[in-house]
């Protein structure tokens, strides 16, 4: 059953890079495009992102994500094109509306940055197994309790599917209509939500006990069942990214 994640299972160079390096990459990529605010730099970052996505063979998985944000992006273009305070030079007209160059340029930069951020995150999310990421974080010192909360979120979908299925069956067995018009379906919602909420609350407490009983509060140093994926290049990649970011800051100061 699918756990809740966007991870696409493949075996590419990008997949094999360790999660921490990818996190560094996201920070670097976003930081640089904000520090050096030119079009050129942002486009370079974007191209690097796209290369990574293509190498990871997850390029087509990004497109829906960009698609979802397109509504926002188009809105920005329209608003900036029409109403940006720095608007002077008219570019074209659409009926009574005049779109200005300054505003459109500004909007284009914003759009590129948004897409850049999306792609950078996608490099991480689409090519990293979430449980690996969480485990890496715990190895690096993040509290196992936080790690547990994050991992549980992944399991929410299978868990809810399992519970909802049983509850739906039980309520349907008592004559509750689940098919039909929208009103009927909304009416059906409450008898489903009640048991789901109640059982979640009861379960939370019992689960807390279950974790205790399995030594969750043990002060011993933890070990890991899964093998650690050693990434020889990890350290170099991270160092490189730090250097590049510093270079960007320096360049900015110089300018």
């Amino acid at each position: 059953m699918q756990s809740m994640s966007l991870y696409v299972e493949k075996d590419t160079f990008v997949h094999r890079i360790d999660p921490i390096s990818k996190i560094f990459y996201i920070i670097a990529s976003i930081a640089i495009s904000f520090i050096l605010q030119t079009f050129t730099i942002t486009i370079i970052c974007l191209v690097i992102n796209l290369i990574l996505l293509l190498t990871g063979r997850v390029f087509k998985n990004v497109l829906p994500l960009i698609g979802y944000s397109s509504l926002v992006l188009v809105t920005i273009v329209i608003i900036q094109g029409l109403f940006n305070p720095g608007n002077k030079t008219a570019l074209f007209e659409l009926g009574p509306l005049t779109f200005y160059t300054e505003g459109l340029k500004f909007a284009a930069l914003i759009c590129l940055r948004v897409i850049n951020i999306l792609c950078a995150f996608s490099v991480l999310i689409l090519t990293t197994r979430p449980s690996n990421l969480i485990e890496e974080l715990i190895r690096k010192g993040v509290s196992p309790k936080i790690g547990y909360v994050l991992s549980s979120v992944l399991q929410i979908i299978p868990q809810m599917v399992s519970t909802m299925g049983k509850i739906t069956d039980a309520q349907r067995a008592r004559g509750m209509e689940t098919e039909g018009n929208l009103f009927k379906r909304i009416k059906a919602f409450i008898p489903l939500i009640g048991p789901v909420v109640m059982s979640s609350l009861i379960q939370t407490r019992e689960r807390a006990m279950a974790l205790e009983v399995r030594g969750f509060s043990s002060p011993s140093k933890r070990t890991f069942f899964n093998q650690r994926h050693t990434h020889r290049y990890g350290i170099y990649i991270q160092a490189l990214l730090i250097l590049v970011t510093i270079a960007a800051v320096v360049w900015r100061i110089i300018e």
Partner: protein
Amino acid sequence: MSKIEVRDLKYSYENGIEVLKGISLTFDQISTAIIGQNGAGKTTFVKLLKGLLKPSSGCILINGKDTQDTTVAELSKDIGLVFQNPNDQIFKSKVIDEIMFGPLNIGQSPEKAKSNAEQALEMVGLEDRRYDNPYDLNLSDRKLVGLASVIAMDPEILILDEPTIAQDYAGKEKIKGIIKKLQDQGKLILTIIHDMDFVAETFERVVVFNQGKVLLEGNTREVFNNSRLLKEAGLESPHVTQLGKKLGYNQTFLTVEELVQGHRVRQGHGTRFLFHQ
């Protein structure tokens, strides 16, 4: 017309695994226990009877209605199913409201629903808890609320899924009593159950499921006499039955009383035999 008619029923999951491989059965007045190992297909079968699942092939007629052509809600007037875990269905804050939910759904008038709910409460012995919050009751009482919720819908057929799990001796005796009362009202009771002793004491007919097929069915005594097929299904006969067989009795004993009686009779004969020597 039989209450339930199952004709060459087959059912497969979406992934292609065939769970039920051709079941043909009819059910009338006689209370029936459905037994079999975990995974034999019992729960799937029962969900198909209830209309929650539709057959992959074959058909099921409930009081003449084909489950393929009737909605679950419509079928609920004829056939009720009590699930194992009451927490999966309880959502009202008063026991009486919870019990009235089903009857109101299937179209009973508020007055009728109330009176059915009251009667159901009496039958399970929880009349004085009618305004309590179901979650304030302990698990076995909550199971009884689940049972009452379906009884109040007044279906002719009632299916119970593992009613004896988590019940102590008093709880089991209560359930036995409720089943007998419902039978006396002319209802057909079907049960999925693991407790062979309880089956022997309460049900007249047994159907044995094994790997998606009916391996054996008939009246309780016949079925529990067939140790070979029971073993094939991964089951055993009730404790009393096993003891009786080992002691060399020809009869198949179903209850403590029967074995005690049989033993006394044999002892009586034995004594007479000694005297005649």
